[in-house]
């Protein structure tokens, strides 16, 4: 069984400061059986690997010069669900591919000692309206924050900036203030 690859070059989008995630997901959805995706990007899109893995793709990343990367996503058998708790969060995220509004609030928490970045993010979220988005800069992946966001029903997207040291997370607040 041979895999053919569909090419997707997102470097122009990334260089313009755009976000190719939706485009990548659409390209994946359009793949036929035995088709993989060859992605060209301006950095190694590590967080994408997790997403693709959950969709049953293995990846092979090669640096092709000038900081650009070629990633081959090959379809395999679907991986087992890693934890039961992942399913609802993934489903919630899948169900909502609509555009997020521009961030209502911005936080730069890069120079705060842990867990202060998490405290500030959660405090600001409590003041925000349903559907608003918070953007926060951090100096590392806020892994203890995610379960709290999940428990409170908010959505988030995050990843390292191309500089590799700043982590940016966007959080869409999904509670009604009255109900909270």
């Amino acid at each position, binding site marked *: 069984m041979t895999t053919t690859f569909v090419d997707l070059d997102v470097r122009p989008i990334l260089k313009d400061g755009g976000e190719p995630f939706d485009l990548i997901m659409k390209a994946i959805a359009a793949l036929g059986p035995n088709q993989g995706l060859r992605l060209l990007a301006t950095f190694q899109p590590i967080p994408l690997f997790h997403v693709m893995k959950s969709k049953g793709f293995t990846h092979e990343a090669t640096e092709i010069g000038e900081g650009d990367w070629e990633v081959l996503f090959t379809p395999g058998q679907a991986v087992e669900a890693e934890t039961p708790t992942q399913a609802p969060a993934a489903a919630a995220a899948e169900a909502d591919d609509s555009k997020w509004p*521009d961030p209502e609030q911005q936080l730069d928490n890069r120079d705060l000692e842990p867990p202060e970045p998490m405290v500030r993010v959660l405090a600001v979220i409590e003041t925000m309206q349903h559907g608003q988005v918070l953007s926060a800069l951090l100096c590392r992946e806020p892994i203890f924050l995610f379960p709290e966001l999940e428990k409170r029903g908010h*959505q988030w997207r995050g990843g390292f900036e191309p500089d590799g040291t700043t982590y940016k997370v966007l959080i869409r607040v999904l509670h009604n203030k009255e109900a909270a």
Partner: protein
Amino acid sequence: MAPAGTGVIPKEKMMLGVTLSRWTMSYFFAALSALVAAETMMVAGFGYPAAGLRAPETLVLVHVITIGWLSLLMCGALFQFAPVLIARRLYSDTLPLPALLLVLAGLGLLLAGFLQLAGWLSTLPSLLPIAGVVLSAGFAVVLWNLGRTLWPARPLPLPARFVATGLVSLALTVTFGVIFATVLGQQTNSEPLLAIAGAALPLHVAAGIGGWLTLTAMGVSYRLLAMFMLAPELGGARPKLVLAFAIAALVVVVAVGIGAVLTGASLLIPLLAGSILALVSLVLYGADIVHLYRARRRRFIELNSRMAIFALASLAAALVLTFALAAFGRFTDGLGPVVFLLVFGWLSGLGLAKLYKIVAFLTWLECYGPVLGRMTTPRVQDLVVEHRARKWFWLYFLAVWFGTLAMLVGQAAAFRIAAAAMLVATIGIISEFARARLLSDVEARSDGPDAVRRPHLLFSRPPAN
């Protein structure tokens, strides 16, 4: 979406977070109890240096320390922090409890088996083989759980690769231990196994203290020190070289060593070559850690990071001492003090220092995480009183260094005084952990934690929903 030009990578919508490991506190409690027990034995003059290095009493003492204290401490910490290293959840939050019970039961049987060798409990059949079975079952559950946690995260980030190598070393250490137990329990006549039991003790020690405990501590320390001091994560070639040399050292010592044991050759060459490789690894690691302390963005660092310096200094001192002893041709009789300094100055010192932060941090997260943003919450540092804890840490490290000296000059009575000081200091430190865990100092400063659920001393409650 985000404004143009921000360059945010928005692809991960359901990135997994890390939750609290339910039984980590239970591991810490069991581990600290074993530490107190071991120090009590040393005060009482039980085991080395009062008894010989290979005496059954010394075996009891050594395994209370290495399995009861250090391994349980490391396992409990890994159930919480291996997931942090790879930003995934622990494979099972249930398995740590049966694993803990099996390891404790196996340890109890092992100690009883050693006492049989010393002529106690001689009416029973040898307990060592069954101890080997129960202990290895306990560690197998630990390895399965952590292995299943790490496996899907390949390719692993560097600190997690240290941990993975440490886990392989744990498996090797346990395997050697089971072979020793089988032979000492007179359950086998297999010549290769008899040869291994006869000569492979240095390999068991190297895989255990070097591969399992030290490599794992190094891997976790890269991440934790950076995290708590706000230093940039280390990249570049040096940390990779640290791991490469460490793995090379392990392969040389264990693989070549087994070959030497089975062919009846001397272990001197693989041990020497392994020591040199390990030394290179440790020197590079030291350079990395110095870099982390220098590159930190927090000028004032907390007690745990300051006390970790004493542990790292103990590691460096143990290396210097090893070479000084080798240079004077006194390496063999100096082995006890060197191992003592490694185990109590480096591993235990680092363990106690990091626990001081970890216990407070996990307790804070458990109690205040759910209400963050909804009410005023104390800071993590409000759970501890550093100036009160500092004296106990100072006493602990001074006592360890004094004890090393006493051992070196062969003063058994002075060593017992040092051990008594260590015991007092340890109990002092443990009482600080308990105060942090029970929110005692938060209560003392304010109206108390009425609005939050009180944490249980011995385990973390599962999340409310």
